[in-house]
């Protein structure tokens, strides 16, 4: 099979655009595994389509994003524990084998070949061990790099939220007897989103959890639980209207009404 001819036949483009018959698709999927040139041609055309697509982007209506978020809101998991490491292509160099050819000094050549082979094998093992440790270090760096990017981007998003012109900052100092405590709420009056920053709150004992309350017309309304592992700004329940916010310590999972003796901080809007 002439690979170059196959690549230039138009099949690559057809495949990327999703216009192949299923037999053609099976064939190209099989061939790309054997021929790096086909794989590269597919990748090139995908990149070409991608850059063209991004260059021709049309901004969707702003309401669309909120509508999508509304449908997938329950699927979010904000505390990621693991960043999948990158797949590294296994291209371990193979060990070359020395073939002793027939000549006048078969013994010497054989001996030399054996010595060379052993030396080479030892060298390969050393190199392979190095390779494995470098590979591990590389994967770790990649992971740390992703986590750093993630952290930076999440902090940047926090700064944007805090400085948004619709965002009101509500300082919640500690109540009498709990003066050390301090929490800040960032409440976006336009989107109703409530974010909270724990400046200082004692670590709750086991089985207990902090709960945020919005005081609406004198009545406390549940505004969500504070996750123990939340860093930076923590998103709580959206509150369209409130005159004050307060935090009480409740049993894990929360209570329907606040335990007033367990109030830690409070602030008015």
């Amino acid at each position, binding site marked *: 099979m002439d690979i170059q001819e196959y690549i230039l036949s*138009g099949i690559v483009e057809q495949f990327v*655009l999703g216009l192949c018959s299923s037999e053609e698709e099976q064939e190209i999927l099989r061939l790309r595994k054997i021929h790096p040139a086909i794989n590269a041609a597919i990748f090139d055309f*995908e990149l070409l389509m991608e850059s063209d697509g991004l260059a021709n982007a049309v901004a969707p209506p702003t309401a*669309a994003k909120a509508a999508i978020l509304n449908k997938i809101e329950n699927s979010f998991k904000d505390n990621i524990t693991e960043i999948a490491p990158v797949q590294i292509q296994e291209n371990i160099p193979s060990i070359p084998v020395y073939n002793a050819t027939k000549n006048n000094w078969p013994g010497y050549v054989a001996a030399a070949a054996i010595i060379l082979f052993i030396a080479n094998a030892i060298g390969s093992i050393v190199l392979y061990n190095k390779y494995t440790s470098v590979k591990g270090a590389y994967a770790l760096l990649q992971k740390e790099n*992703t986590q750093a*990017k993630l952290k930076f981007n999440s902090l940047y998003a926090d700064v944007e939220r805090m400085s948004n012109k619709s965002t009101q900052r509500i300082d919640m100092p500690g109540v009498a007897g709990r003066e050390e405590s301090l929490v800040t709420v960032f409440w976006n009056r336009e989107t109703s989103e409530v974010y909270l920053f724990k400046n200082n709150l004692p670590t709750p004992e086991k089985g207990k959890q902090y709960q945020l309350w919005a005081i609406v017309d004198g009545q406390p309304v549940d505004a969500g639980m504070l996750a123990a592992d939340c860093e930076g700004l923590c998103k709580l329940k959206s509150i369209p209207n409130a005159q004050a916010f307060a935090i009480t310590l409740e049993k894990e999972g929360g209570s329907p009404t606040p335990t007033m003796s367990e109030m830690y901080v409070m602030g008015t809007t």
Partner: protein
Amino acid sequence: MQSTIKYQEHELLALVRQRTREGFNYLYENYSGAIYSVILTIVSDPEQASDTLQEVFVKIWKQIETYDEQKGRLYTWMVQIARNSSIDVVRSKKYQAHQQNREITESVYKVGDNDFNPDNIGIRKAVHQLKKEHKELVDLSYFQGYTQEEMSEMLKIPLGTVKTRMRSAMMQLRKIFKQ
């Protein structure tokens, strides 16, 4: 948000697979425009196109497990979902009835000056430059979702001819894109 650091594709994928908000936001901020443009080339009514975009992003989010890196880039996969969903929308009876009403209303009242022309965006623009016989096939297959067999029957040309023409249409397309 220009100040955010770009994620590489495998990083973004990890964030999306783990269902992080950051993953969704990044995916949406970076790709919704391109995906919306693909949808608009098929579903020309902006309101229906916006509904389709929502459907497509929910699908991408829910079906990310079925995406296989070995078979192509994330963008290619998302575009295929967008194209298939758009074709399904256009083929639905609801859409066709809606379009008919719209055409009548627009021809009677001439609602505004609609300068939106799908021939000016993305792949449509490229396809527009093809020869008539090539354009016809790409139009039927890419934008309307007909198979090669169906096109052979519709156009009354042998399947072999459909295949050859498709291939040469693809070669032309590549040239146009590379310009």
